[in-house]
């Protein structure tokens, strides 16, 4: 999945534990094979190749994820848009100069979730060059799916972590919750806060590891699909919810708002969160 993954669980025997671990690895690999945009054989690549040409038939899991991405698009007033990946072609660390307005206008023509034709069984991207990217939803969903699989194997307590998105169920020894440390943005070996999870998921989105510098100024890798410009986002947002996919969407959407709007949005989201801004100030009502 292109990021560090971890599984911790308590099982009745080593055999069950190994079986569970093997199931997790193969399930994670399945998601990778199916949704990675770097693999030609993936569903993502098949859909993107047919942009402007024909509709691609999709299975219930894919159509479910796309439908879910549609709810994220609505809930974020269009900021969270899985067609906005093409903006990477304009905003990347190989650039030397700021893009001209004409360049932005041309690329934003290929962006827009509302342009997509989606039904329960197929999806069509109307303009050649349009691309969708499942990255914003599938990693967290995979964590949920893996946790549900582990649970169905009879494991009563586990922690599943895929690149910082964590799902827990059951307790550690003696009924204690799972302690999760949130990495300090500067002192990467220490935790800026510790959060305790019991039967909850925690998703963290952060821009501090992925930014680039252009003409002396730091730009986030997150682009506002309406304007085409990078967002003046928070540094890191962690959200807890019962499903990692929900927590992940809320934290991702928060990062697409400019700083104060992001805090307001998180306060009204219905979830507990922990956020750090560019000045290392902390906000939120989540543990630690």
């Amino acid at each position, binding site marked *: 999945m292109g990021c560090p993954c971890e599984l911790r669980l308590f099982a009745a025997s080593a055999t069950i534990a190994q079986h569970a671990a093997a199931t997790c690895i193969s399930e994670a690999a399945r998601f990778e094979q199916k949704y990675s945009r770097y693999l030609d054989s993936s569903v993502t690549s098949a859909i993107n190749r047919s942009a402007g040409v024909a509709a691609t038939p999709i299975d219930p899991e894919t*159509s479910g994820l*796309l*439908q*879910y*991405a*549609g*709810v994220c698009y*609505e809930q974020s007033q269009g900021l969270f848009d899985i067609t906005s990946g093409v903006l990477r072609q304009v905003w990347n660390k190989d650039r030397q100069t700021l893009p001209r307005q004409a360049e932005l206008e041309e690329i934003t023509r290929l962006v827009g979730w509302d342009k997509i034709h*989606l*039904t*329960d069984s197929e999806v069509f991207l109307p303009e050649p060059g349009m691309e969708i990217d499942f990255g914003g939803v599938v990693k967290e969903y995979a964590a949920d799916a893996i946790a549900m699989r582990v649970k169905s194997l009879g494991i009563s307590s586990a922690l599943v972590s895929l690149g910082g998105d964590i799902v827990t169920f059951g307790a550690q020894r003696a009924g204690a919750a799972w302690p999760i440390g949130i990495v300090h943005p500067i002192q990467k070996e220490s935790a800026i806060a510790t959060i305790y999870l019991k039967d909850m998921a925690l998703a963290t989105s952060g821009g501090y590891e992925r930014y680039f510098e252009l003409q002396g100024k730091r730009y986030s890798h997150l682009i506002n699909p309406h304007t085409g410009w990078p967002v003046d986002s928070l540094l890191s947002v962690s959200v807890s919810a019962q499903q990692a996919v929900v927590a992940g969407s809320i934290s991702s959407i928060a990062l697409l708002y400019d700083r104060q709007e992001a805090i307001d949005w998180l306060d009204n989201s219905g979830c507990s969160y922990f956020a750090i801004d560019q000045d290392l100030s902390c906000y939120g009502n989540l543990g630690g």
Partner: protein
Amino acid sequence: MSYLTNMTRLLLFIIMLLLFSCQTVQPWQRGLLARPEMQLEPDRLQAKLHSQVYFSNEASSGDSEVAGAGCGCN
């Protein structure tokens, strides 16, 4: 008889009004409609019970769904 015709007209008018105000609902917007309390019949056993109780005590029947066998109760 004209009473029935007027009733039917009124009901047809209400249906038309509701149908013309229909909005296309995208697949990803259907979450609310899937909730248990939004189902036409959220409680299977309650529905059968009511059907039986009212069939035994009133003259009417016909709810376009529950088709069970009769009973000696009517």
